[in-house]
């Protein structure tokens, strides 16, 4: 089922997408679906297992369900320290 989501991009993903965020309607059930469907936008030659996702400001699993109106934060591989 199609859901309208706010997707936010960070660091390398943001530079690749050329935007901070967008509101987009996708046929996505899980965070993994969102990542896969938006691959060309965020330039994810990086495997999903190296990336992270948050839903509505909570870190989430890739299998977490997404709901209409959710904000999905897509994080490329982190590199703190």
């Amino acid at each position: 089922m199609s859901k309208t989501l706010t997707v936010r991009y960070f660091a390398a993903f943001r530079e690749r997408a050329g935007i901070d965020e967008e509101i987009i309607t996708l046929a996505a059930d899980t965070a993994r679906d969102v990542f896969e469907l938006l691959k060309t936008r965020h330039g994810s030659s990086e495997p999903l297992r190296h990336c992270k996702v948050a839903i509505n400001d909570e870190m989430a699993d890739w299998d977490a369900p997404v709901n209409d109106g959710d904000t999905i934060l897509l994080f490329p591989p982190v590199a703190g320290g």
Partner: protein
Amino acid sequence: MMRLTGEIIRPDELRSSLTDPGAGAYASFEGWIRNQNEGQAVLRLEYESYEPLAVKEGERVLKEAAEKFPILKAECLHRVGLLEIGECAVWVGVSSPHRDEAFEACRYIIDQVKVRLPIWKKEHYVDGNSGWVNCERCAAHG
């Protein structure tokens, strides 16, 4: 407490927050900006974070350290923005009754902070190029 800052980190001013009458040990870790990475000469570094979740996840790491090791206090401060060679990017401090747990907790905290917090590092090289660390192929597209 986990904090992010855009200001220069001065570890000497931070350790006093860890004092405790029961503390017999204090261990700290400082991550510094070095002038090369994987064979490329680095000019400066740029750290980006998503602060709400970096703080939340950092607090979780500090809480885990306090559960795993018998420590008294633990703090972490991470720099964001543009950093020059030699500057402190991250500071971790731990106080505890004895040294073993201070060292172990400090190590645990910095290791987890590096792999879990939504913080990204962009290297600006002497040759004019730049790249996101751990995300070479993403950057190649950008």
